[in-house]
Structure formats: structure tokens, C-alpha cells
């Protein structure tokens, strides 16, 4: 089962260089180990929420607003995608992922990735509709 481990960090000014170096080293170690085990399918940081743009379609029109979709105490800061046996293994990995990258400690949310649903009957309808123009 693939799991996405979402990193929520607290965006907070005043993080020291040493602290960020520590976070960096933590991520390097976790990624290297997950890579060695062959279960790392992706991991990347996100730019801060000050760079976020939210798009919401209203009455068929895309309405663009500045900022993340919701103001929260902790902000989405990055993710890992790992192939794990079960939730317990994912929980173990979550414990090894630093969360302080945006200034203060946060948490990891684990979400299974069930894959894109296979709906061939719908695909063929869409295909037929496309053919018939």
C-alpha cells in the first residue's frame, strides 16, 4: 500500500541556521534509508503558504484568490510517498520525518493512496461520446 505522509510545519519566524540544518540532515537520512529499502516513491518540500494561490470554480468561472485554501495553525510544508506493508510501518516512518522546516515543530498526517479508480465502463462512454463528437 502506498501512503502519502503530509508534513505540517508551523510557519514561524526566528528559526536558527542550526535548527534548519538539523531538519535538513533529518530529511536526508530518512530519504536515504527509504531509498535504500526501495520504498521511496517521492518526497519534496513545498514553498511557503505566502506563495499559495487558490482557484475555485464558481458558476463555471475560475475565481483566483491569494493564499492557501484555509488558514490553519500548521501549514502543509512537504510530503513523502512511501510504499509500506501497512499503517504501522507508515507510522514508524512518520516518526522519523522532521517537521520543523518552516520554523516550528508540527505533525505528519498519513493518508493511504488507493490509486486512481478503474472505471472502464465510464471511460468507454467518454470515448464513445468523443467519437460521436
Amino acid at each position, binding site marked *: 500500500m502506498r501512503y502519502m505522509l503530509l508534513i505540517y510545519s508551523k510557519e514561524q519566524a526566528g528559526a536558527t541556521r542550526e535548527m534548519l540544518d538539523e531538519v535538513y540532515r533529518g530529511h536526508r537520512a530518512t530519504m536515504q534509508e527509504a531509498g535504500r529499502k526501495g520504498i521511496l516513491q517521492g518526497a519534496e518540500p513545498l514553498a511557503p503558504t505566502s506563495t499559495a494561490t487558490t482557484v475555485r470554480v464558481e458558476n463555471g468561472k475560475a475565481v483566483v484568490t491569494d493564499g492557501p485554501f484555509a488558514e490553519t495553525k500548521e501549514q502543509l510544508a512537504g510530503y513523502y510517498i512511501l510504499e509500506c*506493508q*501497512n499503517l*504501522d510501518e507508515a507510522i514508524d516512518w512518520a516518526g522519523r520525518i522532521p517537521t520543523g522546516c518552516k520554523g516550528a515543530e508540527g505533525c505528519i498526517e498519513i493518508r493511504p493512496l488507493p490509486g486512481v479508480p478503474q472505471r472502464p465502463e465510464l471511460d468507454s462512454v467518454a470515448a464513445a461520446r468523443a467519437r460521436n463528437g
Partner: protein
Amino acid sequence: MADIQAAAEELFRQESGRILATLIGISGSFDRAEEALQEAFAAALASWPESGVPEKGAAWIMTTAHRKLIDGVRRDNTRRDKQESLRYETERAASLTGPDEEESAMHFPDDRLRLIFTCCHPALNQEAQVALTLRTLGGLSTPEIARAFLLPEATLAQRIVRAKRKIQEAHIPYEVPPPERLRERLASVQAVIYLIFNEGYVATSGEALMRHDLSAEAIRLGRVLCELMPEEGENLGLVALMLLHDSRRHARVRDGALVTMDEQDRALWDQQAIAEGIRFLESALSLRAPGPYQLQAAIAAVHAQAKTPEDTDWVQIAALYARLLEWNPSRVVALNHAVAVALSAGLEQGLELIDELGRSGELDQYYLYHAARADILRRLVRPAEAAEAYRQALRLATNRIEQNFLERRLREVMPL
């Protein structure tokens, strides 16, 4: 006919947890397992009135349910394409559809330990853990659980559905945790069982102070846990604690009013439960791995062994609470310790400890803090202060029976 039905129902109640655990282990699906078990039960009700109850009724149900389970998987396999969502369960079930399925049905391992760890997995919230444990291992029906927790049936059904879905979709493992995680996970299992017990022992609201069926069920689950993990002192300690508390249930309420321990008619204490509780405690202590349940059981045992309130060995109780504080440095334990000190070393000394605890303000909203303070002030014959403390306790108590008790005490210290 009615006898057969009753016999089948009794058997179902006794054995369903074990059978269900095995079926879940085979199929990897709570829903499939429950469906198969229900079909087997229906089959028993249909055929037993004619054939009689088989000698090995449980094995009969297990074998029948196993066959229904395989039928169900085969049906689904031919009916549906292999969808992603089904792969997890069918992969596991496929390995068991061999020709010797029926012979092997008699030799399935006891999977109840795996089941209880899955039901009490920390990725499920505690309400869901409780509901799922009672539903699967306890063999209680959804309406029964809803009634016991004074909840609408739909709410409880929803809780169980959500929990089962999370187990399935997040792949919460069906296994006994490895050693490095075992202690932590076992604590969560013990907490669920103790919570069920307490829910039955003291209702948090409403008129029913005791809902004994839940307590009895918790004790049964605790016994199962001991049977499965006999070397765990805290499992034994937990059962000892529940038995010793439960031994006082007939004495705790008189004419709908709560009776404190020193006013209880000790002749009503269940001596058989006390003896068994003490036996469990002794087995626990012999394993030399102390813990909070054993310490609480030891405290309950000291109370249980006192012939009269005056006989109570408060010195020992104070010492046990002091040790419990090391495990669980909560203000509530500290409060109990202070009361024991008051009754052993001296009322003034105990009151000092209580007032010290109260200084942080954290206990202001805790009715037992005010009730304990009031009781010591009453014993010290300081009626005005005692009355004020009883009034504060009364404002915070939610249980009608506890309120009645506090009102009576208040009238005693403040004669008009």
C-alpha cells in the same frame, strides 16, 4: 424449539469472538467475516431443531461459517472484475480455497489477540475502539451497545462502519504488534477494557449508576486477554482490579442512593469475587513486573480485606498511592493519596496536602476534590467550611445519585 434457539444464542455469545477473529484472519475483511458468521448462525437455527445441537457446536459453526466465507469470496470473484479495493481481501482469501478447507477448519489458530489489537489500534479513536471491541470480541449487537452507552443506534452503527472502513482502507494491520510496540499497544487494549468496565460501573450521567452488563463484559474480555497473554502482570492486575471493584456493586447503592465505602454493608460484598480478585492479584505480583493496574488492585484488595472501615490499613493504602503516583503523577491520584494520608497520618496533614494540590486551580472543576476536602473538614468538625466545600462539589456533580449523597452530607453538617 425455544431451547434450541436459546442454546444457539448462548453458544453464539460465547464463541462468536473467537470464530469471528479467525474468519477475519482468513478473509482480511470484517464485513465478510460477519456476514459468514451470521449465515452460519442462521443455518444452525434452521437445521438444529431437527438434527439436535451438535456435540461440538462451536466447531460446527466455525466450519459452516468458513464454507460460507469461501462461497462468498467465490461469488464475488465471478461477479466482479478484480477491483483495486477488493484486491487486499481476495488475495488473502484465495490462498485458503484449497480442497482440504473443511478439515482444516477444526484447527484454526486462535486469532482473538490479533483482533483485539486491531480493534484497539491507536489510529482509531477511543470511542470507535470501544464499539468495535464490544461488537467483535464481545459479541454484543449494535443495538445492545447503543443501549449500554445511551446513544442512538444510528450513531453507534455509523461509528462501527467508519472504524471498519478505516481498518480496511488504511491497512491497519491484523497482527499482534512486534515486541518494540507491544507494551504501548497493550496499554491501549487495557485502557479500552477498563473504560468499558467503568462505563458499566459508574454511569457518567443519568439515573442508572450501574450498568452491570458492561462491567461483566469487560471482566470477560479481561479474562480472555489473560488467557491469551498469561505472562503479562498488568493483564492479571486489570482483571483483579475489576473483580475487586465489582465485588462491591450490591453494597454501593441503597434505595437509589450512593453509599460510600465506609458506610457500606460489608455483608453485601461478594466474597467469591474478592477471593478471585486476590488470586489474580497474587499471580500478577508473582511475575514481578509491577504497574498501575496491579497497584490499584492492591489498594482495592486492602479495602476488600478490612472487616470494618476502622480495620482499613490506611498506612498501606497511603504507601500504595505514593507508588502509584510514580507511575501516574496525576492530580487525581495525588488527591487519593492525600485522603489516605489524612486517614493514616492525620487529618490536618492530609488537608494540607489537599489544599496544596488545590492551589494550582486545576482541580477547581473536579467534584471529587471538593467532596474529599469537605469530608476531611467534616471529620475535623469544621462544619461551616465543610458545608461550603459540599456546596461546591454539588455544583459540579452530574450524577443524580452522587448529588443525592452530597445533599445528604450537606444537611448533616448544617443542621437547621
